[in-house]
């Protein structure tokens, strides 16, 4: 899947400083980042490098201390809480390391939740939830509670919830962090399928094996982007294209 030329989101010199008592912690120090529509980007780096802070800002869960953030061409770094909630609901899909399914709600209701907040009609919600669960192979577990599912299954449901609303971008924060390798691989395969189907994905991971699944890997260190590289799949795809006699820019 090739990314289009127009960036879906742009960070311009984003800084984030945390103040605790007398300590000032610079979590992000002048981040510049563009993610284009349909792109699959991994953000990698050691613990404490600012990956999750960056993802929180991208997901409008947090706001930058300085700098600009444009999503779909619109400045979103200083919106009101309710406006941010609205954009989160329509433009962003979240996948968390700890799944973050709501224990009191069934699988169906968990996936339906963001659509409910959007005020979508019951019939539309039903179709979207069904499609999303079909996509992740969990339709047969729709009436189950999260506690009745394995970790891998719970993360599949979380993926379904993230994509049910057809967001502009899916943000995944260490989606395999709480899974064994088999389940982790399965979830990564799911992500690839989503990407192939056109989804824009930004994934935070500290595991290089999974980072290489992306088109582009952004390396963070001490709150700065220190390196960007093409992912393994992108390299492989480029190689295959060259082998077939195509010119690759």
């Amino acid at each position, binding site marked *: 899947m090739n990314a289009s030329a127009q960036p879906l989101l742009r960070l311009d010199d984003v800084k984030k400083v945390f103040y605790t008592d007398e300590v000032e912690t610079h979590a992000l120090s002048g981040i510049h980042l563009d993610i284009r529509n349909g792109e699959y980007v991994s953000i990698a780096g050691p613990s404490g490098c600012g990956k*999750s*802070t960056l993802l*929180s800002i991208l*997901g409008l*869960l*947090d706001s930058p201390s300085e700098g600009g953030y444009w999503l779909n061409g619109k400045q979103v770094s200083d919106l009101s*809480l*309710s406006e941010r*909630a*609205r954009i*989160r*609901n*329509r433009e*962003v899909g*979240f996948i*968390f*390391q*700890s799944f*973050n*399914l*709501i*224990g*009191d*709600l069934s699988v169906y209701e968990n996936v339906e*939740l*963001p659509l*409910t*907040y*959007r*005020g979508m009609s*019951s019939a539309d919600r039903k179709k979207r939830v069904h499609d999303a669960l079909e996509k992740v192979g969990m339709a047969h577990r729709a009436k189950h509670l999260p506690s009745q599912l394995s970790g891998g299954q719970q993360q599949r449901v979380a993926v379904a*919830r993230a994509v049910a*609303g057809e967001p502009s971008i899916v943000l995944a*924060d260490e989606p395999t962090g*709480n899974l064994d390798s088999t389940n982790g691989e399965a979830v990564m395969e799911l992500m690839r399928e989503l990407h192939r189907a056109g989804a824009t994905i930004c994934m935070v991971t500290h595991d290089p094996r999974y980072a290489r699944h992306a088109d582009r890997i952004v390396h963070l260190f001490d709150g700065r982007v220190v390196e960007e590289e093409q992912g393994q799949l992108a390299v492989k795809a480029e190689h295959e294209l060259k082998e077939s006699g195509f010119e690759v820019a």
Partner: protein
Amino acid sequence: MTTLLKDIKYGLRGLLRKPGFTVVAVLTLALGIGVTTALFTVFDAFALRPLPLKNPEQLVNISGLNARGERMNLFSYIDYLDYRDRSDVFAGLVAMNKVAAPLGDAVPGGESDVLPGDVEYVPLQMVSDNYFSVLGAKAETGRALVAEDNEPGAQPVIILSHWFWEHRFNSDTGVAGKTLRLRGETFTVVGVAERGFIGTSPDAPAGWIPLAARDRVLPAGFWNYRRWLTDRDADSVTLVGRLKPGVSREQAQAAMSLIAGQLATEYPEDGRKVGVTLASGMAFVHFSAEELQIITPLLLAVGLVLLIACANVANLLLARAATRQKEIAVRLALGASRWRLVRQLLTESMLLGVVGGASGLLLSVWTLSALYPLVISSLPLPAGLKESFTLNLEPDFRIFGFTLLASLVAGIVAGLAPALQASKPDLASALKDEGSTLSPHLSQSRLRNALVVTQIAVCLTLLVGAGLLVRNVRSIQTLDIGFETKNVLAAAVGLRKPDAEGRGDVEARRLLAERLRGLPGVKSVSQAYRTPLAGGPAKTAATLSASERDGGHPFEVNYNVVSPDYFDTLGLRIVRGRAFNGQEAQTGARVVVISEATARRLWPGEDPIGKRIGVGANLVEEKEEDASQAFGGAGVFPSFEVVGVARDARSGWVWQKDGTFLYVPLSPNSRLGQQILISTERDAQAFVPALRREARAVGDLLVSARRPEEALEFQMSPFRSMAMLAGALGMLALALAGVGLYGVMSFVVSQRTREIGIRVALGAQPRDCVRLFMRQGLRLTAVGLVFGIAGGAAVARMLASALVDLSPLDPASFGSASIFLACVALLSCYIPARRATKVDPMVALRYE
């Protein structure tokens, strides 16, 4: 709507998944709402529920207004006739009043606000002949009153109430024509009121008699006796009107005001009513602004109990929100707006409120149905008067509506602050695997602390109020009323068939007193016009001579006419001078003993012995019913010499010192010595058979015996009821506050288990852990106590008028309530704190 239903569905499911939390929250709210609903039910029964009459909304109660704007509920009969005949806004205007008449023979003795306990009294209403037609009631059997029944000199008749007919006449359908003796007079039963008709007050009468029969059921000398038919100033009846269809209350008010103005111009006497005011007569009671002020402390107390319950539930919801922090963060991350989330959380708390309210309603219905008969039976009233009290406490739509409103308000009050606080979590950390580590704003919530402080403060406020009222009862019980009531018997004595002059009564009493003096075990016997603690004292006019203070203008004094032994019989000490002696009483010497307060008022700083005071001639001439005329200015005031000063007493009402009080000697031939007082060595009640035996030996006497101790009990009962109610509310508040504090501290301990583990691992002793939590609890308790003492002082100000010889800032009440509450609060902290010491550091350090 769909979203709301979804919120309700999720809310219900969430509550069912946490049954422990739900049960505690629902029970807490049920207690708070139940108490509130119970009070509202009683209020509704009195003030809101329409009377069980035809078109009750057309009824109006009419009150007069004097020149000072004070309300005067009684009208003279002549004024009634004028209002009835001159107005054209009423379909009918009714005059009526209540009286309790002894069943059977008349009871000797004069008027008294406290009825003797050994006589059966029946409650009656004296009514104008249009009473039944205006109120729209029919006779179940026989007939209602007719105009002829109210003719002067008409044969006395009675319409029985349905309950009295059932109880006393076994629903005898042939009761019409039978007779009933009331106060020695024979009344003919002419009908029975239809079932359910109780008139316009909750104390339904046993029967209705015509106004014309008024003096037959009242003792001679009773208020406006014999004058009520002829004197325009003899206020004797209350007025209720039924508006004509299409006439509004405002129109009727204007018409009646016009008539009041005309009457004021035509009869411009002092104290004349200059206006009237019409209030809705749809319910039993129409509370005026002043009356509402009296019940304000009770409303406040009940509201505060509900507030404590809400604070408890708010704390529970805060604790629950803390455990749901991750869920809330996820919802926010998925795009729920804060308002949307607050709405959902409020839906949950309102569900708790509604379920709590429904349980509270049941609780209130059960409690009221259980307590109502107990309360009625504990009233110190004669049996007939208790039986007649019919208050409908069945829940109606107003009570359902009120409960629903209270439930929703309680749900919002309890849920709003937690919802607002819970809906602003630190999203980034909450969504990470840090769900078990609460953000500071939930784990060490200022809101939670504020709620605990509020609970303690409100609880102390209530406990101080309750403490003051309980101490008040104790204070009354131990009050020095100035004389002895123990082993004293008061007997009203009179001939069954008195002669017109009353000389036979006088002689019979003298003979009986003589015989009683000779009985073993009798310490002293005396006679008096009024018995101690018989209610409002007799009053007359008095004056000082023109050369002395008050300029010779008459002023009101309380008095009693007593035989010389009166002071000995009651142990009423003479503190200066002497009591009058037998010879002075025999010769009718114009001497008087005054109270200390009288001396202070009339001759401050001087020796009152030998001073002279003019006493209303009516008293000297024994025209008791004309006492008020002495104030007209034309009265004669024979001069009496002060020979002694008796210590101040409370001979009328226990809560009221006598003030200006004169003890006038009872001459042997006076008709005023109706009461014989006997002081005995042993229990006075055991002396009653001997009293009756001696009375029979003297002649065909009627005797009604009563112990002043009983009267004291009667007078104390409202204070005791107030104290019991306040005590119950205080204890409920204490229980709720204790449970609330316990819950909060338990939650805090559970949230700090990991921290405790670390502390223990680092060498902390159990006492260090206990101290850690006790310090937190103590700090909150101390702050709450400070605010509570301030609240208690405010409540004490409201209660000041109900306190008898007790300072509103009584240190014992404030101190004991504070200490008691502090102990409960510390215990509520200590139990969870002790639990903290049992923490296994290995387990705690793995605690998530």
